[in-house]
């Protein structure tokens, strides 16, 4: 395996890099954080115009047919500039689920609106009593004459406040064939009667909601994927989402290392730049090594996902586990080497740290992916 980027992929990276560098300053980001929506609607519109929102969808839906590599290229730049706009929630998660399993009418309507920058989505898959496990689903969907009726609660639904539509996991049957069996996915518009939201901000500057569903009636066309087997489409979408947040993490870690190297060169204590202290130099070298190892896993995983390699899922688990460790090491030491200013709201370093803390938690902790990695390795070698 040797990754060579196509000309289009190189152009995508260069244009994302250039656009964000020139138009996504930390100060303007912080202004957007303070808005109710938690991001800048004009930026989202520009992302649509630049074709970023269409990049990974199939050509039949007016997408550009990109895959995991394109997701990685974009998200790495989003991480580097701490982009707030809900690409992960609207495009990777809800866009991915809708493309993979929604009925044609839903697909046409949501994807067209999404690609045009007019629609937003959010995936409600977590519940309060079992937040570490997406197969913990108590929300129910009962069959009715012409569809389903949903009841239950979903917690920490990222981008909930801005979403026009949700994909919601609900139990339609017992977990007879493993923990994820009996779970189905439903496409629910925000204005559906019985759906209510409690909105709030997250520590990493985004927005989220608690969802309550009280007799939310949807038509049978709302089903996304197979009945009782929603995880057949959710699992690959989660893998893509893990790749996306890990790419974001690599971009964020790059930004932290650059900032730390610059700061330690410029900061003088005891009559010299603190970058001259060997203990700090080695710390920064270790940060660098953690980042490069993570980057190698990231690139290989993207390539393997695009090529349906037998060990792609194993690499996804390895990558998420590695990001958990590297993200902590790099962000903790970036804050430590910046000293007091690293702990302030005014300075960017702490915001990268908070984003990496959230990424470390999302879609499973380091430990759960380590155990997934060993299970998958044992299966592959037997």
């Amino acid at each position, binding site marked *: 395996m040797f990754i060579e980027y196509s000309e289009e992929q190189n152009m995508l990276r260069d244009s994302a890099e250039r656009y964000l560098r020139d138009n996504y300053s930390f100060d303007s980001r912080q202004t957007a954080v303070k808005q109710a929506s938690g991001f800048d609607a004009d930026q989202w519109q520009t992302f649509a115009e630049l074709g970023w929102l269409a990049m990974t969808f199939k050509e039949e839906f007016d997408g550009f047919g990109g895959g995991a590599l394109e997701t990685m290229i974009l998200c790495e730049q989003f991480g580097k500039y701490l982009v707030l706009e809900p690409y992960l929630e609207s495009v990777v998660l809800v866009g991915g689920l809708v493309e993979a399993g929604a009925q044609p009418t839903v697909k046409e309507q949501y994807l067209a609106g999404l690609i045009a920058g007019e629609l937003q989505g959010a995936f409600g898959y*977590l519940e*309060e*009593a*079992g*937040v*570490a*496990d997406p197969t*913990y689903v108590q929300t129910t969907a009962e069959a009715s004459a012409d569809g389903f009726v949903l009841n239950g609660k979903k*917690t*920490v639904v*990222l981008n909930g406040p801005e979403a026009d539509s949700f994909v919601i996991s609900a139990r339609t049957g017992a977990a007879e064939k493993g*923990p994820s069996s009996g779970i189905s996915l439903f496409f629910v518009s925000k204005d559906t009667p019985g759906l209510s939201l*409690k909105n*709030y*901000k*997250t*520590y*990493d500057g985004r927005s*989220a909601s*608690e969802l309550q569903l009280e007799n939310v009636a949807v038509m049978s066309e709302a089903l996304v994927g197979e009945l009782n087997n929603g995880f057949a489409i959710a699992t690959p979408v989660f893998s893509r989402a893990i790749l996306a947040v890990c790419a974001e993490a690599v971009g964020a870690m790059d930004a932290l290392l650059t900032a730390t190297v610059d700061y330690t060169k410029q900061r*003088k*204590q*005891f009559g010299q730049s603190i970058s001259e*202290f060997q*203990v*700090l130099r080695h710390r920064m070298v270790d940060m660098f090594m953690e980042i490069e190892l993570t980057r190698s896993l990231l690139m290989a995983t993207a390539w393997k996902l695009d090529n349906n390699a037998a060990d792609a899922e194993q690499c996804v688990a390895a990558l998420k586990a590695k990001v958990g460790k590297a993200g*902590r090491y790099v962000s*903790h030491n970036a*804050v*430590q080497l910046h*000293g*007091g200013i*690293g*702990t*302030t*709201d*005014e300075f960017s370093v*702490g*915001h990268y*740290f*908070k984003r990496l*803390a*959230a990424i*470390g*938690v*999302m879609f*499973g*902790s*380091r*430990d*759960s992916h*380590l*155990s997934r990695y060993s299970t998958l390795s044992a299966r592959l070698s037997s």
Partner: protein
Amino acid sequence: MTDNVFRTDVRAFLAESLTPEIKRAGELMTSVFADFDATMDWHKTLYAKGWVAPDWPQEHGGTGWTLSQRYIFQEECKLANAPALFAMGLQMLGPMLIRYGTAEQKAYYLPRMLSGEDVWCQGYSEPGAGSDLASLMTAAVRDGDDYIINGSKIWTSYAQHSNKIFCLVRTSKEGKPQAGISFILVDMDAKGLSVEPIVGLDGTVEQCQVYFDDVRVPAANLVGAENQGWDVAKSLLEFERGGHNFTIDHKKQMAKIDLQASTQLSADGGLWKDNPVFQAKLADVAVDALALEFTELRVKGAFVAGGNAGALSSLIKVMGTEIGQRFNELSVEMMAEHTFVKQLDALLPGFDGEAIGPSCGLTTMAEYINNRAATIYGGSAEIQRDIIAKRVLHL
């Protein structure tokens, strides 16, 4: 009185004196500082009981307790979720004034510190002088019976709530940098002094920058002689480091972790406390915390025998803060996405709404974020390791 009887007395007092609101403020602490109003209420309760400054000599308002009783008191207070009293006056400046202050300074400042009439903050660090504190530039120039101060102090905790600040200022540029520093007490309402809050990563204000623009201070406010401030400050740093019991903090963290582990489900569907990987990780930190507890007891034994902590206090600061950070990480792992929810209003002791998510995870992210500063303030982990290298290993 045996220690057990003493402990029973302390518990009885805490049970009757800790109001629900004060206790709530202690439960909701996300850093070393609790809610200001609740903490001052608790300060006044302890003052009325005569227990506000157990570490002080009895003639100045101390309790006359043994070292062991003082430890029991601290432990019981923390485990009952009493807010920690602000250390800047009682723990830092008080003992130092008792040692270096004039008779007038003691008579004036100590009673006001005990009663809570004065709230003190510490003006040491400057934008250009952090780890290298001796390079500080805020200047005090003698003018008749006064000094005129110009410059700025940063990372001044709770300056927005304080009416007094003790500062290190430069009074001479001759000789070594340490030789030209003086220690001075300043009224926060002095003309030319201003406070700018610094918003922390959790969205709250604990730190400030304090600006001095021709601030006039009587020369009588000098503590120790002019240019002798470094010695005074060094003794204070010992109080800052030696006065903190990390073990009690760790026990409080472990109690929280136990609650989380016995109520929250891990990815395998069982409780965290039954997850073998988690058990091993928790035990790994707990063993280090236990080793640190015995180290703290060793140091206390040395105090009783008339010795001092020496560079072991640096070891305790490094390990105590790093172990605390590891406990924070375990909590974040268990509370998972619940830690994302930012609900600052629910962290106020008077909050009467309904908080989002499990109550045992309410403070988890803010504690994790805020505790990153623990290896930076009060002498960074790097500086502490340098001290051990120099003073113990003679490198």
